[in-house]
C-alpha cells in the first residue's frame, strides 16, 4: 500500500527467494531457444545455480524478517525454514535430473524452469499469511508438477501419472478454494492472522468456519498425501520421472505441511478439539495404509511411494501434539525426510537405467558386491527411513513421538511405533536383495555421474549430520515454531 521506498525495499527483500527462483526460471525459458539441443544440460546447471542463489536470497530475507506486502506473506523463521527445505530439495532434484534427462533423451530447458517455478510456489506456501496467496502458491507448484509428472511423454505410465495427478489435484485445489470461501463467509477475511483474531471472538466456531476447515483439510490432505486422500500417490510417483518423484515426495509435502501448520495453529488455533480426532484417525489410517501396502510391493519406486505415505502419517503424529514442541518436530521431520527420501529416490534414478526398466527389487540383487559405495548410500537412506538410531530418520520419529507423548497422545504413539516396525520389513527387504542375494548376470553397472554423486553425498552427509548432531537444526526448528505461534 505504501509507496515509501524503504518499505518497498523491505517487501522485495522478504520475497527475495521467490524473486530469484522466478527470475532464473524465466531466464532459462528465454535462453532455451538459443541453446542447441545438444547443450541443453547447461540450463540444468543454470537452474542449479539459481537454487543456490535462492538459498543465498533466503539468507537475505532472514536479515530482515517480518510481513511483506501488507501482511500477504511472511518472512519469519518458520517460512525461512520451509524455504531452505524446499529449495534444497529442488537443488538436489536438479542435480539428479541432469544426467537422467540425457539418458531418457528428454533434455529440455522448460523442465528446469518448471522445477524452479514449482519451488517458488512452494516457497509462497511456506510464507503465505493470506489464504488467497496460499492458493496462488498451491496452484503454481501444482500446475508445474502436473507437467513435470508427464515429462516422459512417450512413456504411457508417465502420461497416466500426469493425467491422474492433474484431475485429482484439481479437485483437491477446488476443495481448498471452497474452504477458503467458507472461511471468508464465516469471518469476512482471508488473512490468516485476522481470521485468527476473529475466530477467537466466537464462543463456538461458526458452522461455516468448521466446514471451511474441513474442506481445507481435504484439499491439503491430498497434497501431503494422507489417507484417505492417498489413492493417487503410488501411481503418480511410479509414473513420474524418478527425479520428479523425488521432488514430489519431499518438497510439496514440506510446503503443504507448513501451510497446514499455519492454518491449523494460527488461524484455527482455538479449534484444537475440533480437528484432533480427524487428524488422529487420518494419521492411523495413513500409517497403516502406507506400511501395509508397501509390504507387498516389488517395484522399489512404488514401495518408496507407499513409504512416503506412511511417513506423512508419522508427521501427523507430531502434528497432533499441537504444541510448539510438536511444530518443531514436524519441521525437523520434514527436513530429515526430505534428505533421506531425496537420497533414496536419487539412487533409484541412477539404478533405473534407461527407460526406468530396472525398478524391481530383484534388479537390486547383489548390488552390495557390485557397487558397494552406492549400495551403502542406499542402505543409509533406507535405514534412515526405517528409523535406525544415528540417522536423521530416527531423530525425526523420536522428536515426533516425544512431542506427542508430551501432549499425552499415548496410543497414537504406540500405533506409530508398531507401524515403524512393520515398515522395517520392506526397507530391509531391499537391503536383503542388495547384500544377501547373488548378483544377476545381465546387469552391467554404470558409473554414477558427478552431478548425482554430489547430490548423493550431500543427502548422505545431511542424513548422518542430522542423525548425530541435530542440535543446531533443532534449535532452528524450535525458533521457527516459536515464530509461527507468535502471530
Amino acid at each position, binding site marked *: 500500500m505504501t509507496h515509501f521506498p524503504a518499505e518497498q525495499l523491505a517487501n522485495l527483500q522478504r520475497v527475495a527467494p521467490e524473486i530469484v527462483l522466478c527470475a532464473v526460471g524465466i531466464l532459462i525459458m528465454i535462453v532455451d531457444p538459443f541453446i542447441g539441443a545438444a547443450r541443453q544440460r547447461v540450463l540444468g546447471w543454470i537452474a542449479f545455480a539459481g537454487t543456490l542463489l535462492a538459498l543465498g536470497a533466503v539468507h537475505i530475507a532472514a536479515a530482515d524478517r517480518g510481513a511483506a506486502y501488507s501482511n500477504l506473506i511472511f518472512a519469519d523463521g518458520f517460512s525461512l525454514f520451509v524455504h531452505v527445505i524446499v529449495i534444497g530439495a529442488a537443488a538436489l532434484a536438479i542435480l539428479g535430473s541432469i544426467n537422467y534427462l540425457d539418458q531418457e533423451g528428454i533434455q529440455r530447458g522448460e523442465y528446469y524452469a518448471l522445477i524452479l517455478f514449482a519451488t517458488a510456489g512452494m516457497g509462497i506456501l511456506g510464507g503465505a499469511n493470506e489464504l488467497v496467496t496460499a492458493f496462488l502458491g498451491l496452484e503454481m507448484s501444482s500446475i508445474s508438477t502436473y507437467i513435470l509428472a508427464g515429462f516422459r511423454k512417450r512413456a504411457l505410465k508417465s502420461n497416466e501419472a500426469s493425467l491422474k495427478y492433474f484431475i485429482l489435484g484439481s479437485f483437491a485445489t477446488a476443495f481448498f478454494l471452497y474452504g477458503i470461501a467458507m472461511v471468508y463467509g464465516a469471518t469476512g477475511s482471508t488473512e490468516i492472522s485476522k481470521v485468527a483474531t476473529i475466530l477467537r471472538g466466537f464462543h463456538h466456531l461458526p458452522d461455516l468456519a468448521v466446514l471451511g476447515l474441513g474442506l481445507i483439510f481435504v484439499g491439503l490432505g491430498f497434497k501431503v498425501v494422507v489417507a484417505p486422500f492417498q489413492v493417487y500417490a503410488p501411481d503418480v510417483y511410479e509414473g513420474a520421472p524418478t527425479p520428479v518423484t523425488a521432488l514430489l515426495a519431499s518438497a510439496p509435502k514440506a510446503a503443504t505441511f507448513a501451510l497446514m501448520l499455519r492454518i491449523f495453529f494460527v488461524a484455527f488455533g482455538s479449534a484444537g478439539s475440533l480437528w484432533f480426532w480427524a487428524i488422529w484417525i487420518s494419521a492411523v489410517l495413513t500409517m497403516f495404509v502406507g506400511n501395509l501396502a508397501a509390504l507387498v510391493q516389488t517395484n522399489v519406486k512404488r514401495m518408496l511411494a507407499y513409504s512416503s505415505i506412511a511417513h506423512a502419517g508419522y508427521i501427523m503424529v507430531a502434528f497432533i501434539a499441537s504444541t510448539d514442541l510438536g511444530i518443531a518436530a514436524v519441521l525437523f521431520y520434514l527436513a530429515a525426510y526430505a534428505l533421506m527420501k531425496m537420497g533414496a529416490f536419487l539412487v533409484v534414478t541412477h539404478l533405473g537405467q534407461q527407460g526406468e526398466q530396472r525398478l524391481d527389487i530383484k534388479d537390486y540383487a547383489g548390488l552390495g558386491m557390485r557397487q558397494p559405495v552406492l549400495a551403502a548410500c542406499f542402505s543409509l537412506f533406507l535405514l534412515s527411513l526405517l528409523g535406525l538410531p544415528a540417522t536423521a530418520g530416527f531423530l525425526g520419529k523420536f522428536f515426533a*513421538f516425544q512431542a506427542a507423548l508430551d501432549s499425552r497422545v499415548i496410543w497414537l504413539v504406540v500405533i506409530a511405533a508398531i507401524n515403524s516396525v512393520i515398515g522395517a520389513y520392506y526397507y530391509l527387504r531391499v537391503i536383503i536383495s542388495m547384500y544377501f542375494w547373488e548378483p544377476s548376470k545381465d546387469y552391467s553397472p554404470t558409473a554414477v555421474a558427478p552431478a548425482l554423486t554430489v547430490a548423493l553425498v550431500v543427502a548422505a552427509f545431511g542424513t548422518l549430520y542430522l542423525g548425530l548432531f541435530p542440535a543446531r537444526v533443532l534449535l532452528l526448528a524450535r525458533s521457527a515454531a516459536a515464530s509461527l505461534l507468535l502471530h
Partner: protein
Amino acid sequence: MHAQNHFLTLVTFLPLLGVLAMLLLKSDDHVSIRRIALVTSLIEFVFSLGLLRYFSSADPNFQLQEIHDWIGRGIQYHLGIDGISLFLVLLTTFLTPLAILCSWRSIQKNVKGFFISLLVIETAMIGVFVSLDLFLFFVFWELTLIPMYFIVGIWGHERRVYAAIKFILYTMFGSILMLVAILWLYNLSPGTRGLPATFDFPEILYRMSHGQIPLGGTTEMLLFLAFLLAFAIKVPLFPLHTWLPDAHTEAPTAGSVILAGVMLKLGTYGILRFCLPLFPHAVMRAAPYVATLAIIGIVYGALVATVQRDLKRLVAYTSVSHLGFVVLGIFALNTIAVQGAVYQMLNHGVSTGALFLAVGMLYDRRHTHDIKQFGGLTTPMPVLMAFFCFIALSSLALPPLNGFIGEFLILIGTFAGHRAWAVWATSGAVLSAIYLLWAYQRVAFGKVTVDKNQKLPDASLREKLILVTLAAAIIFMGVASPLFTHRMAASADNVLRPFNQMQEAMRAKEHARAKLAISAPHPAQLSRFVGALPRPEPRRLVAPTSAAVLCSAGGSPAVLRPQAALECGSLFTLNESEGLPLCCNEAFVAPGTSGHRNHAPTPAALTAATTAASLIPLALRHEGNPVPPQFAGMGVRAFRVPDGVPGRDLLFPHPPLAVSATRVRHPERSRLAARDRAAEGSLFGFVLADSPARPAPASPRLLGGRSFSSDIRRPVYRSGALAPDLLLPSHPLTPGASPKSIAASPRVAP
C-alpha cells in the same frame, strides 16, 4: 559434576579406528584386513584391562564418568561403569579377538565387510554397557542390530536370510516399545519439583528414589513391561525365544560367538540396570511370573536341546536354558542370586562362546552340524575333542569350573527366598548334564562311523591358541571367582537397594506397630496449617458418600474449627483417588451427603469417620479384627501421607499417617490392592468390613467414578501448594450437580 575422564570413550570407540584403517585398504588384501582386525581387537582388550586398574571395587556408584552435552533437551553423552558393566565390557573385548581368530580361514567372501561388522558391533555392544543416558543407550542398543543382521544374512548358512530378518524384526519390535517407554519416562522426569526433563539415567534414578517422580501403579507396570519386553526378547525369555535357534544356527561361527557370548547379555544387563532400580514395585509384583517363565525356559530349553540332531542348534537351545538361570537369579531379588546371575552371564559368555567355537571348528572340517555325520572323533582329533569335552563340562557346571560357581550362587540365592523355584531350576542343571554329555558321547566316542572323518586334521596352532585361551579363562573363573565377585558385590547391592529397603521398611513397621505412640502437634500449629490451605472454589464443595479421617495415630479426639474443617474437607474431596481424606489431628469428619453443598456430614459418615480413628490402632495391630456393624461395607485404611502435602511434616511426624474410610464397592479388589500397598510400605493397615446383605447405597460412586482401589500414590500434591488443577474449576458445576454429573464430565488434564 565429576572430573571428565575420557577413558571409557576411548575404550568404546577404539575399534572404530581399526574400521577406518580397514576402509583404506583394498578389499582383496585379505591378509592385512585380518591382521588389522586382530591387532585392533587385541589392543582393545589390553586397553580395556586398564579399566580394572582405575576401578574401585568399594564404590557402588558409577565410575569413570564422562558427561557432555549432546543434543540438548536433556540428551547427554554420559558414560560410566559399575561392577556389573565392567565385566561385561571385559567379556566383550575378550571374545571379539577370539571371534576374529576363528573366522581367519572360514570367511572368504567379502572379508573386509565381515571384519568391519565385527568391530562395529564391538563398539556398539560396549556402548550399550557403558552408556548412562537412556537416549544414548537406545542408540547403541539399536546399532548392535545392523552389523549382526549383516553377519547372519551375508555370511550365514542356508537359511540365513530368513534367520536374519526374523532376528531383526523380533528385536526391533521389542525395542520400539522400549523407546516409547523411555520417552514416557522422560516426560515424567520433571517430577513433583518441576526439574528439567532428562534422559540421564542416574539423575532419573535419584529423583525416583527420592520420591520426586511418583509413578502410579499402572504406569509403573506398563513402563516396566515395555522395558521388559525389549530385554526379554533379547535374552531370550521363554516364549520369546523362537528367533534364537534360527539366528544361532544360521550365523557363521563368529556371529554365534558374539550373539551368544555378548548380545544375549544385553538383555539380562538391561533388566538388571534399568528394570530393577527404576520400577521396583512392578518388579516385585511381576517377579513370580517372570521367574516362572524363566524356569519354563530352563527346563524347556534343556529338553529341546536333548532331542536336537543338529549340534549347533543344540548349543543354541542350551542358551535358552542357561539364560533362564540368569533371569531366575535376577528375579530372586536377593544379593547372592543377583551376583550369581551376573557371574553366570560371564560364564555363559565364555563357555557357550567356546562351545560355538568348537562346533565351528568341526564345521570347518566337515561343513555340517549334523550329529549323525560325526562319531568317534576322538580317534582322528584327540586334542580338539579333549578341549571340547572340557568346554562341555564347564558348560554343564562341573565344579570347580566356572559354570558351577554361577549356577550355585543363583540356586542358593533363590533357595533362600523361594524354595520351589530353586527345586525346579535344579532339574535344569541335571538335564544339562544329560544333553551335553550325550551329545559329546555321540560325537566323540565309539568307532568312526563316517569314512570322511578318518583323516580329519587335529587342531591347528591357531585353533589350539583359541582353545587354550578359553580353557585358561574357564579354569581361572572357576577358581578365582572372588576376584570377580568382590568387584561386583557393591554394585549388585546397589541394584537391590530398593528391594532391601522395602523389606527393611516392612520389618521396621512390624516393630513400630507395637509402640505406636506419636505426640500430637500443638493446636496452634494445626490451625496455622489449616489456615494456610488455599480456599477452594465454593461451588466445588460436593462431598461424596464417604467419610475420612486423618489422624496422627493414637491421639485423643479433639475437634477443629468446624468451618476450617469443612473447607479442608471439601478441598481434599477433589482428590479423586482418595475419596475423602480429611486433615485433622485426632479425629475429624468430612462434610457430607451427596448432592448437596456445604452440608453437615451424614450420620453414617460421621460415625464412620470418628470410629475410624479409634479403629485404626486396632487395625494396625491385627488385620482380622472384627469390625463394628456400622462399618459394614466400609473400608478403613491407614496410609502414608504423600510427599508434598503441605504441612505434612508438621502435622504428621512419625510416620506421616493418614486414615481414611471409604465405601468399598469391590471388596476383593480393594483387599488385593491394599495388600500390595502394604507390601511396598505406603499402606499401614487395612480393615474391610464384610458387607452384609443389604442394598447398596443410592449413589455409591465416588468422585470421578473412582472407588477405593485406585492408586493412592498419585501425584496429586506438589510441593508448596496444591496443584493448580485442583483449585481451578475445570468445568463449571451448577449448584445442584450430582456426583454423577461430575463423573461424566471430562477429566482434568494433568
